[in-house]
């Protein structure tokens, strides 16, 4: 495995443009969580011309709905959810300056076009490695939509959160380039 690149959000467009599909990264800093319902609410606010409760400029959103934390732990198990369900909402957030998404699975052509246009990157975390990933999440607090439970928007402070650049800001996509190399 190649050595991992350290990343500390918030990040600039230049930092994002330098990342290449296949790069292993370790993320340290603050990231936000969001799933289906939170994305729906955020985009509805935008459509109504209102301000969002979080400033997404330079930030990353992790697609996760963690399990409840056991006493003494910051968070429960917290692996990525499937990203395509968030595709309809993502271009609007990229326009606001969102620089990265962490999830698993394919993205739509519209999302990839918006990533190229605005300079953003899509990281993959390993689906089903939820207990392992939770070890890199040191603090967690609910920022908005507490009524959504696991789907509420959390602010995570993470240290050396492991991910891989699956789709970079130039449109290079591991889901398209890697499997054909192992096809028989």
């Amino acid at each position: 495995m190649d050595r991992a690149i350290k990343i500390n959000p918030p990040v600039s467009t230049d930092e994002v443009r330098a990342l290449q599909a296949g790069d292993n990264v370790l993320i340290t800093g603050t990231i936000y969580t969001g799933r289906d319902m939170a994305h729906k609410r955020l985009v509805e606010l935008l459509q109504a011309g209102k301000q969002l409760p979080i400033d997404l400029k330079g930030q990353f959103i992790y697609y996760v709905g963690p399990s409840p934390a056991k006493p003494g732990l910051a968070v429960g198990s917290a692996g990525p959810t499937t990203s395509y369900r968030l595709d309809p909402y993502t271009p609007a957030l990229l326009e606001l300056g969102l620089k990265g998404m962490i999830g698993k699975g394919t993205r739509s052509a519209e999302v990839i076009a918006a990533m190229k246009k605005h300079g953003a990157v899509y990281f993959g975390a390993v689906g089903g490695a939820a207990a392992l990933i939770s070890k890199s999440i040191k603090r967690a607090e609910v920022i908005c939509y507490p009524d959504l439970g696991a789907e509420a928007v959390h602010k995570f402070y993470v240290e050396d959160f492991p991910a891989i650049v699956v789709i970079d800001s130039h449109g290079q996509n591991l889901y398209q380039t890697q499997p054909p190399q192992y096809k028989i």
Partner: protein
Amino acid sequence: MRKIDAAIITETVHDLFLQANYFIGTDIFEQLKQRRELEESPIGKSVLTQIIKNNEIAAQEQLPICQDTGLAVLFIELGQEVAVVGGDLNEAINAGVSEACTNGYLRKSVVDDPLFDRLNTNNNTPAITHINIVPGNRIKITVTAKGFGSENMSRMKMLKPADGVEGVKNFVIQTAVDAGPNPCPPIIVGVGIGGTMEKAAILSKRALLRPLGQENQDPRYAALEREVLDEINKSGVGPAGLGGRTTALAVNIDYFPTHIAGLPVAVNICCHASRQAQKVL
């Protein structure tokens, strides 16, 4: 008539749902380790290493293997000489699931109305329960925690009898490969052939319960399982869909008699975290 108290059912379902969520089956764990040795893709190998490590941490610390602690799907073989007393069987099952979620720090992932309100029921119920009445005076309870990343990638199709073996083969392979990275490969593929529309779907889910390495008893179906597994693993999708030889760990096929006009086929996909536990009362 043997009597079993509903409170025993609740306690059993509670324990089994927790067990399923914390401890991966040894068949899956061993298969993951074997496949890691054979995996040619460096990224694929790294993904398998993370999954194995995750399963070790989950078991040691009793943490959920996956944050999607699943919709509880139960298969119950209810002996016809058993009477459940002291409460409603379905309520007893739901109480077990709900208490496990609270006591075991599991996620509550169920919404009440699927289309309009989508309000969380806040106790991860109702469970989906399939009850079969069988001879005898025992109850066999199998509890599974079904994640929806893989459930969403499942398909069913009413094939024509003329589509035959090739038609079935192509449909199963296509479903598994089209799913790509979304269902958290390496996957386990449950296939139900025959019956009616809903029977095929239930067969495909039940097929996921079969331990890895155990083939269908009919040699023709066993050969089909091997061939389809081989083809899926030739696709290159690989662990986490990032390329490699390990796309599926098993293909389990179950079949049932069907109508002269039909060939229903259901493909139920499960992620590598195929979580289940069972007990006979």
